[in-house]
């Protein structure tokens, strides 16, 4: 059983690598140019495929952390805590990717690295919540307490996401929407590349989760062995 699982993981990892390569090709070469006047605008929009897929994984990972937290509070089972922790770590990296890729795109498209637009702001807050979650974990030594605190914060933070979203949206609509109108929608070829990236990144996330959970399990086993030897 264990053998077969390992084989499956290797296959999944290879599949993710191939899919990411194809996604990269589709995003950079396969998808048509956008109908934008400026040359930079035409090329810069290609980052969108990876940018949105990254954002999707970032928020999905946060939802999984929430589910893991609720699962832990209900059952006190270590496996749920491992799921929550793994997902939070991966989500943090992806959220940082969203902020960086968004900034890279914003510079040629809007002329600035950052605007306090609703989606940018919510992503930044989301990232900061993740960082807080990981800092909270590293600051509690007792494993059971760490899992409980992390689960509670995961729940509180997850509930804050829609409220933050509403708040930031209302906060911004008070101002004229400057950058809202230039989105022209995606053509059929663009749609394909877009959804391909979305699915690829989701599979990639599952692969990473698997690796991370496996790592945490091994860590637990090493800890248990250590305890046994040390008496």
């Amino acid at each position: 059983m264990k053998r077969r699982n390992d084989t499956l993981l290797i296959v999944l990892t290879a599949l993710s690598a191939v899919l990411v390569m194809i996604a990269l090709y589709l995003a950079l070469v396969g998808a048509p140019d956008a109908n934008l006047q400026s040359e930079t605008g035409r090329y810069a929009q290609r980052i969108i495929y990876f940018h949105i897929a990254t954002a999707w994984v970032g928020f999905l990972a946060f939802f999984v952390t929430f589910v893991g937290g609720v699962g832990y509070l209900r059952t006190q089972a270590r496996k749920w805590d491992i799921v929550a922790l793994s997902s939070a770590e991966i989500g943090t990296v992806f959220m940082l990717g969203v902020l960086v890729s968004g900034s890279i795109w914003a510079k040629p498209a809007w002329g600035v690295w950052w605007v306090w637009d609703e989606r940018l702001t919510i992503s930044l807050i989301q990232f900061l919540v993740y960082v807080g979650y990981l800092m909270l974990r590293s600051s509690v030594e007792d494993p059971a307490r760490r899992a409980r605190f992390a689960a509670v914060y995961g729940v509180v933070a997850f509930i804050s996401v829609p409220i933050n979203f509403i708040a930031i949206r209302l906060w911004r609509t008070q101002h004229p929407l400057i950058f809202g109108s230039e989105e022209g929608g995606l053509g059929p070829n663009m749609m394909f590349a877009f959804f391909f990236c979305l699915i690829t990144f989701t599979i990639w996330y599952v692969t990473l989760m698997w690796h991370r959970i496996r790592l945490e399990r091994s860590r637990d086993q090493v800890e248990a062995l250590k305890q046994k030897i040390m008496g």
Partner: protein
Amino acid sequence: MSYLRKILAIVWKDIVAELRTKEMFSAMFVFAVLVIVVFVFAFDLRVVGEQVQQVAPGTLWVAFAFSGVLGLNRAFVMEKDRGCLEGLLLAPVDHTAIYFGKMVSTVLFMLVVEAFMLPVFTAFFGVNLFDLRLILTIVLGTVGFAGVGTILSAMTAQTRAREVLLPILLLPVAAPVLIFAVKATAGVLDGQPTSEIAFWLRLLVAFDLIFPAVAFMTFDYVVKE
């Protein structure tokens, strides 16, 4: 003893402890004044005269929020330091009563500090803050801030990083309170109609209900051993 009486007993305990030492009030008040002074220094060269009105709501709420973090930190660290938290947990009350008691006492301390801050702020910024709608905004904003802050403070008091961790966990989650409260305050200062301000106040009420409800469900996990 009814549930309400138990909550009030905890609040009363905190008030008596504070009246004997006055350390929390003085620290929070002085810190809030210092935040405003720092803001004035930071903005002084750019924001002058009429423009001060524009930064007044934000400055006010940053001062309230930061001094609130100070108060929230003390709420549980104080109990933890002298081993009082164990005593409190051994008391024959539902653990959520401890949450509500601590939340109410934090709200009271913050409101007292804010009441003292208003005349100071009025003097420094030359804006009239004595408006019933503004007082309602301050009460609702403070309840929202303390509501989510109390459960996080109960957690961070039991961690290694303690005081350092609370603002990092609290501020992203409490961001909507700041947005709603600053909007409502700005509305009052700009002389907007009450219906406009009521919109933000309703959102604050929603926030004030959601997080105590979440805390009610999860507080047990935070304090149990």
